[in-house]
């Protein structure tokens, strides 16, 4: 079973990719074979003064995904995701979750080597 997580502004495949990772509204976890979805709310990270990206990485790691698709990831979150063995695909804002997943399936998403946003 290969599952990936996508930062999302809502719970479904037709919601928009949330451009933020740490402070994303939530994560749609997608089973790549069945396209079954599961939604993880990220509200608890959104209200943190700092460390939102790290906590979000914990949430995603617990969901047992192999890859994360999002808009931007900061350096600490990137380090955390790397430590958890989760690959990161960035710059996918402006798409629906479904479109981002299709791109990934078609090998059109580049796996990031580093964070694409400066930390705070």
């Amino acid at each position: 079973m290969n599952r990936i997580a996508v930062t999302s502004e809502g719970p479904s495949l037709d919601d928009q990719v949330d451009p933020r990772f740490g402070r994303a509204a939530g994560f749609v976890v997608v089973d790549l074979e069945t396209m079954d979805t599961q939604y993880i709310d990220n509200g608890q990270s959104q209200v943190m003064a700092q460390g939102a990206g790290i906590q979000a990485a914990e949430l995603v790691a617990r969901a047992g995904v192999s890859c994360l698709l999002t808009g931007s990831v900061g350096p600490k979150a990137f380090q955390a995701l790397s430590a958890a063995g989760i690959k990161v695909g960035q710059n996918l804002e402006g798409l629906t979750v479904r479109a981002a997943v299709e791109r990934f399936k078609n090998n059109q998403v580049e796996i990031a080597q580093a964070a694409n946003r400066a930390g705070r």
Partner: protein
Amino acid sequence: MIVAIASGKGGTGKTTVAASLATIWAGEVLGVDLDVEEPNLHLFLRPAIAGSEMAHMTVPTVAEAQCTYCGACSELCQFKAISVFNQVIITFPEMCHGCGGCIAICPEKALSAGQRELGEISWGQAGGVGFLAGRLRIGEAMSPPLMRRVKARLDQMLAATGGDAIIDAPPGVSCPAVNAVMDSDVILLVTEPTPFGVYDFQLAWEAFTPLGKPMGAVINRAGLGNDAIYRFCQEKGLPILAEIPYDRAIAEAYARGRIIATVSTGLKAIFVSLRDQIRDLAQPNRSREAAHA
């Protein structure tokens, strides 16, 4: 007595006032630079440094062989400075606030005390004025932990020598500024009568009023701008303890690193009067006449 020289807006003259007050204070006095992100009091007091030490914060070090990845530390840390991902534990020392909670809570005793360098504390003597300052390590994000260590040394120095301290605080109204003024006996707000000066002065007044300390205003560059600052002080019942004129001679002396209280007898008189009024503010029941009797 500890006097904190603060401001909302930066560049209004905190250091100018702190250096001048310390110089004309009379009696045992310490000039303390708590603007650890960009200390500059030494440029004016020019102390001979007698000693210095590095300040550190306790951060967790992981003995991964003993870690069972239970996640207790990660759950406790509200700053996410330590985090467990399945079978991996990582620390973000720069995020740590040094509470030591993770080390205390670890059931496997896999965490021990490591250190993060905060910066340097130095002390010395500038003529008759004692000197103490903190300087934040470049790259360090939090200044309050270093400020607390400077204040701990200040307490030791005051306990040993007695006397008063004049704190040059950082600008603004966030944690570093509040940290610099919260243990003082009197807060002096230095501002200028410009729209920016007035706006940030109001923020500072709002931020520091809940501390319940005697407060007074010093208006630097008086003659510039408008009368909004005077109206605000009157409305809030905040005493204006001194006005420093907007004068080229002051700017020239400042640019040469001089202490402006030593520039002219008129300027010295402004600071002597300011000092006396601060002493009155600190002891509201003592009238100045009685003190001089």
